[in-house]
């Protein structure tokens, strides 16, 4: 399944992704802030930020050196009085929306965010059509035969008739 932590990115791209130095190990005690409120905000924030180096890991989980730097930056921003949104924006300004594990709501992600309710509505719609159709066909079979239909059946049943006169 997933090879996350410890699995320092082995990338085919010929560049040294900034994860190969040092054996850092996710969030470190010496990175943590003394103020427990700020620290817990930092943890929540860094869990929602993707490490640009190690694919699909948050900077809170990542061993990469860059993730360490970003964790420290997050804490420094918080200490200097940034709001959570400002901290995120600081990193988005440098690495783009890519760092946000929760994609932002904007035109290009409209389909993504509205997708879930739309898919559910479509599926419900299919179920509804299924029930409606079943009802129609069952009404169709239960309805008494019309005069014309009876005439056709009579013609079909008639041994004298060779089938040319009345066909359904």
């Amino acid at each position, binding site marked *: *399944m997933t090879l996350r932590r*410890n699995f320092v990115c082995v990338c085919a791209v010929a560049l040294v992704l900034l994860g190969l130095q040092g054996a850092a190990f996710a969030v470190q*005690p*010496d990175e943590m802030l003394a103020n427990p409120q700020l620290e817990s905000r930092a943890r929540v924030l860094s869990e*929602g930020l993707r490490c640009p180096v190690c694919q699909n890991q948050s900077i809170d989980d990542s061993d990469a050196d860059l993730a360490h730097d970003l964790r420290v930056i997050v804490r420094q921003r918080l200490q200097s009085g940034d709001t959570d949104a400002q901290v995120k924006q600081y990193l988005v300004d440098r690495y783009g929306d890519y760092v946000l594990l929760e994609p932002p709501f904007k035109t*290009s992600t409209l389909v993504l965010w509205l997708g879930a309710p739309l*898919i559910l509505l479509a599926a419900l719609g299919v179920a509804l059509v299924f029930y409606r159709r079943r009802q129609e*066909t*069952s009404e169709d079979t239960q309805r008494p035969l019309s005069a014309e239909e009876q005439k056709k059946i009579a013609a079909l049943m008639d041994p004298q008739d060779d089938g040319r006169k009345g066909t359904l």
Partner: protein
Amino acid sequence: MIAEIGHFSLILALFVALFQAVFPLIGAARGNRAWMGVAEPASFAQFLLVATSFGALTWCYVASDFSVLNVAQNSHTDKPMLYKIAGVWANHEGSMLLWIFILGLYGAAVSWLGGNLPPALRARALSVQAMIAVGFILFILFTSNPFLRLDPVPANGEGLNPLLQDPGLAFHPPFLYLGYVGFSMAFSFAIAALIEGRVDAAWARWVRPWTLAAWCFLTLGIGLGSWWAYYTLGWGGWWYWDPVENASFMPWLAGTALVHSLIVVERRDTLKAWTVLLAIVSFSFSLLGTFLVRSGVLTSVHSFASDPTRGVFILALLAAVTGGSMALFFLRAPRLKSGGLFAPVSREGSLVLNNVLLSSAAGVVLLGTLYPLFMDVLDLGKISVGPPFFNAVFVPLMVPVVFLMALGTQMSWKRGNLTLALRQLKVAGVAALAALLLTWAMSRSLGASAAMGLATWLFVGTISNLFNRLKPSRLSLSEVWRRAAGVPLSFYGMILAHAGLALVIVGITGSTAWKTEKIQVMHSGDTINVAGYDLAFKGVEEGVKGPNYIAARATFTASKNGKFIADLKPEKRMYEMPPRPTTNAAIHTSAFGDLYAVIGDPNESGGYVTRLYYNPLVPWIFIGAGVVALGGLVSLGDRRYRVGVPSHKVNPKNPVHA
């Protein structure tokens, strides 16, 4: 020599599969019994040849024959035997060979067990099965041949990623593939039915056991993978919505929907086109997963080396298999006429709703997984779709599913009575409310309280369903026993599977809502309190020799109120080949949670970074997943699905319905 035998039998298997794909199909179209009959020996031959091929590669691994490139790249003489064998499928080429080995196994199993199938249906299904085999054997032979030789022969191999040298991961892929590939059975039967233009209750009864078996294996495979992630990755996480995880979850969701919709086909002879489509989609999701994992179109932490050439090949395969079957579906589905009727409020109705929700969930996971790819292609920028998105959209879809699981199973077939069903769930409702309030009082967490309430609703509701059936409070013991023996196994299976899911929900809630984490530098003799447990750090022993690694092993003594509980010995290992470090957590499991200790790096003052966790209720996730799979297995033993048992009417005096 052995490698060449493996290679050669794979080529032979290709021809046998080609033969098996063509003649039985023509035979079925012409009503020629003899031509149809060749499917059976062909499927056995194909299986034997593929098994020989797989055995040959395994032999090369066991004997550490480094003249075979694949072995040299993924094995090492110092590896323990278990991981030499597991090394066979821990790489792209070998795992594809395991894939077709399992495909051959299922094909042979149909021939062996499917004596009661109509000959034309069996011939067609086996022919479709062989077509899939042809595609995959071609894929292996042309892009991923595991039998290539290496010259000069290296003195030793490059070894296996130490993270994969783990019992959880050694067994996880075979189970996963037994699941993925198992859905090919439902697929082949669906295609055969589309060709014949007929789906009926008997068809559903033949398809359901195969689907159920595949579903059980997939459940176990996902559970094992998640468990492995939990104990090896060192932070107590067990699911991250990584594309590779999603790739296994989508077929599971579709397969779960299929297992349920087949009940409606079997009971009411309706929902046919939908069920056939689900069978196609379940297997297509399996193929899609193979494509996503191996082509490199998505970034994942998974390790398969990605290769666009292979990607193009698998995409072509996917296009042929899924595109072809959907075209056939478009042409033939209108012929599938529906039979019986039922009201929206009924057991069938709730199964329909289950399908609506589960397939929406699969669709949402698909959308989230592929959205970054869409953005790449349309050049709209780069985004990440991570756990916060999936949790936000997936959980709301699962809440009604869980709610309905208790309610729907209380409803009668055809036309249900909502008030009556709800009345039978009185106890469950009270219990759920109590659980909700209790959780609220303890944690003040709205989400956790709702989840615990829902899990209790499901668990108590499911158990009370069993009680309503057996009425132990009103009837004599012998009468209860008689009733219990009369209830079909598939009913017990349902009870187990649903109750198991309740356990999973409790585990998920506990581990997300009440996890305790302590990260600090500790010196020998320090004690840290984690969720009521005292963990005393006794120091680190360096240079502990393992079979192919050297470890630093720490010792923590856990006690509660002065009473000794256990020693935890987490390790930091350095593997020799390839030289890579791993952290190995130490876990002490109790009924209500895991103590989880990880040792980190030393600092200048002689202290060590330690991470200590209490993960409440986590074991329930994996136990619950096991119970869910067990439910499927029990259901599989139902006499209606047993081989050779002709379907017969149930005694009208003692009606049993699952």
